[in-house]
């Protein structure tokens, strides 16, 4: 029975990764492309982690701080596990739609709980492997393992996901509990996740200060010894210290066991208890008649702000861009100015650099991409109403613009002011940001229309998975990275020329996609699900 439950969970996990489509060929092509994108993405991460670990191994070997390689690897992988699986934990454990169906069957609730936890654990192992495996490999090549160190490494590798899963469960539980009692569930969920996210980033950032803030560019890794659990893991893996391993095992397994034990005991009550919420009184219809387009736009904006998953996955670039702009202007401005001055690139590269940062962060905004897939089973409403598909598509695009433009422009202005960029160059920076917002909007909508995913049960699947989402994000990033590369070459010739490279191509491509959307796109929308 447990085997069947686990099998169905795993097949559901992989089914959500496949791409739906009308024709088998299109489905096959899209799924194949999705798999290729996944492989490329994972290969990129493995390579990046391997390269980083390779450099760190040499540095740590010289200073004798070999534990630092694994301490940093454990910090990074635990962060990746936490943020990669936290939404899955929340939906799988606390908001799963098939709870009632499974509970009505002769299945022990313990099996339902265990099957869910095992699949979440598998996700954590996969995410952990992306960081830990290249680090362990590079450590073996560059420094070499002690026999006991290798055994400890395996033990830490096997135990770490239990800890990250336990932390995910606690955060997801707290968020679900608080959100379920409040009316504005989305705001509370987003706010709490942001608090946890920024708190964790601050913690990692603090470690980074200890590790790498040396003015003479020499790393002082000794600060990592203050990271307790992470240090013990690193020490056990690198030096085979059994005391460190014991401390790590105790600190990781005891809280994990407690969390899993409590969750197991309270599982039925968690999934079956409905929190009482105060009923909102209807006080008559106070809304006035509006136009078709404005009504469609309002609908799209309302949908965005109604879903924490949509906000966190498709609009987080906005928040990160603003946080980064403020952080840079407050703390790192002097350092960056100094570095730029040292390399004699102050005048030429600062406006270009600021544009690159804003544009790149903006490429993480995917508001328009899942907007078609999110129609899901409700697509019949738009398709049976007397609305032009052009209006529907343009409303989805406008929603992207309305949500992404203000924060992107504010971030750009903050950076322009912080770096004392002239008004003329600041205008170019803002134009580059506007161009990137338009490009990501059009590109995302285009892919969303071409590769919609309607067969979802949970909206997380529409927002996070499918070829459109991956293609939109990776495509935008790759596109802007190419433009940045060209811009770097042209900026020494002319600053304006460098900036124009970031402005003109996105605008041209946006115009091309616009002309497609208002012609072929209309037909494509009409034929969705037909």
């Amino acid at each position, binding site marked *: 029975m447990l085997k069947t439950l686990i099998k169905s969970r795993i097949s559901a996990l992989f089914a959500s990764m496949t791409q739906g489509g009308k024709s088998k060929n299109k489905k096959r092509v899209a799924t194949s492309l999705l798999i290729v994108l996944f492989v490329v993405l994972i290969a990129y991460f493995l390579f990046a982690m391997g390269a980083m670990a390779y450099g760190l191994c040499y540095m740590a070997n010289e200073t004798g701080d070999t534990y630092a390689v694994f301490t940093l690897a454990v910090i990074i992988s635990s962060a990746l596990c936490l943020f990669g699986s936290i939404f899955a934990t929340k939906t799988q454990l606390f908001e799963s739609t098939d709870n009632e169906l499974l509970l009505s069957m002769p299945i022990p609730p313990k099996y339902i709980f265990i099957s869910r936890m095992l699949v979440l654990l598998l996700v954590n192992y996969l995410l952990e492997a992306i960081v830990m495996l290249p680090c362990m490999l590079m450590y073996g090549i560059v420094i070499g393992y002690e026999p006991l160190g290798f055994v400890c490494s395996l033990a830490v590798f096997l135990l770490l996901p239990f800890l990250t899963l336990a932390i995910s469960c606690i955060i997801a539980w707290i968020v679900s509990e608080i959100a379920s009692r409040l009316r504005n569930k989305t705001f509370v969920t987003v706010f709490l996740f942001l608090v946890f996210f920024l708190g964790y980033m601050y913690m990692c950032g603090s470690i980074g200060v200890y590790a790498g803030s040396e003015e003479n560019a020499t790393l002082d890794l000794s600060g990592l010894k203050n990271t307790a659990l992470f240090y013990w893991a690193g020490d056990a893996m690198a030096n085979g210290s059994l005391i460190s391993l014991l401390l790590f095992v105790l600190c990781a397994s005891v809280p994990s066991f407690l969390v899993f034990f409590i969750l197991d005991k309270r599982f039925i009550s968690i999934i079956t208890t409905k929190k009482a919420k105060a009923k*909102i009184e209807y006080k008559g219809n106070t809304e006035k008649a509006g136009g078709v387009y*404005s009504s469609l736009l309002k609908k799209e904006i309302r949908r965005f702000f109604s879903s924490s998953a949509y906000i966190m996955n498709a609009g987080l670039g906005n928040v990160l861009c603003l946080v980064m702009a403020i952080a840079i202007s407050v703390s790192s401005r002097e350092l960056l100015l100094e570095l730029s001055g040292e390399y004699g690139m102050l005048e030429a590269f600062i406006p270009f650099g600021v544009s690159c940062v804003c544009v790149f962060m903006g490429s993480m905004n995917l508001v328009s991409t899942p907007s078609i897939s999110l129609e899901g089973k409700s697509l019949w409403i738009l398709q049976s109403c007397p609305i032009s598909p052009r209006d529907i598509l343009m409303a989805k695009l406008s929603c992207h613009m309305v949500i992404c433009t203000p924060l992107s422009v504010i971030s750009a202005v903050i950076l322009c002011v912080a770096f004392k960029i002239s008004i003329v160059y600041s205008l170019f920076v803002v134009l580059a940001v506007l161009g990137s917002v338009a490009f990501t909007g059009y590109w995302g909508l285009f892919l969303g229309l071409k590769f919609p995913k309607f067969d979802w049960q949970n909206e997380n699947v529409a927002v996070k998975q499918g070829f459109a989402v991956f293609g939109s994000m990776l495509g935008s990033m790759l596109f802007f990275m190419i433009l940045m590369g060209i811009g770097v070459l042209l900026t020494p010739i002319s600053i304006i020329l460098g900036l124009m490279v970031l402005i003109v191509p996105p605008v041209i491509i946006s115009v091309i996609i616009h002309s497609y959307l208002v012609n072929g796109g209309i037909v494509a929308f009409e034929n969705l*699900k037909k």
Partner: protein
Amino acid sequence: MLKILNLTKTYGDKRAVDNLSLHIKAGEMYAFIGHNGAGKTTTIKSCTGLLNFDNGEIYIDGVSIKDDPIECKRKLAYIPDNPDLYEFMSGIKYLNFIADIYGISTQERNEKISKYADMFGLTSDLAQNISSYSHGMKQKLAIISALIHSPKLLIMDEPFVGLDPRAAFLLKEEMRRICDDGGAIFFSTHVLDVAEKICDNIAIIKDGRLVISGKMSHVKGDSSLESVFLELEDKDSAFGKEWDNA
């Protein structure tokens, strides 16, 4: 009001609807019955512009759904078999959204919302999110949203599923009123008693082909609709066609 001419729709090798023709005039209430998978929903979705079809033509009040789908959609309202509405909206926001789409004035929408929400007992829940609604409440909201723009033609797929007896009664009353006011109704149902009691006309579909259609009294004669339906289900469609032609 609704003219379906030689409608054919295939899914791969399967003919879901095969050369189906029907004519529903203003003032008529037309029931559409058949076994599961007979082609009822495909026919209905084709009529509402939700599905493309391979052959044939569909006219709504004289306008071809192929040539001018938006004009056709202005004249009709559709209620699907499963009311998947925008769960992120409250009931009132959804009704206002639909009213905006159909260009209903503030005063008119307020009157209609008030009238139908009171009628179906949904007024106190209008401020709640649709995600908190039961199936029946969603069905009531879908019905109100369909009635809000006073459609000339109401097309419904299993409209009574999930409705409580009072709401079902009120819907039947409203359907009768629409037809009396010159509108037309075309709906599918598995509840043969309802079809028998309230409909003027009936069409029975089997394996995508129209087995019989016409006035209720002619179709069922002295028998009950149930016995006619079961008899037709057991016989092959060729016999049914002969009966229809006769």
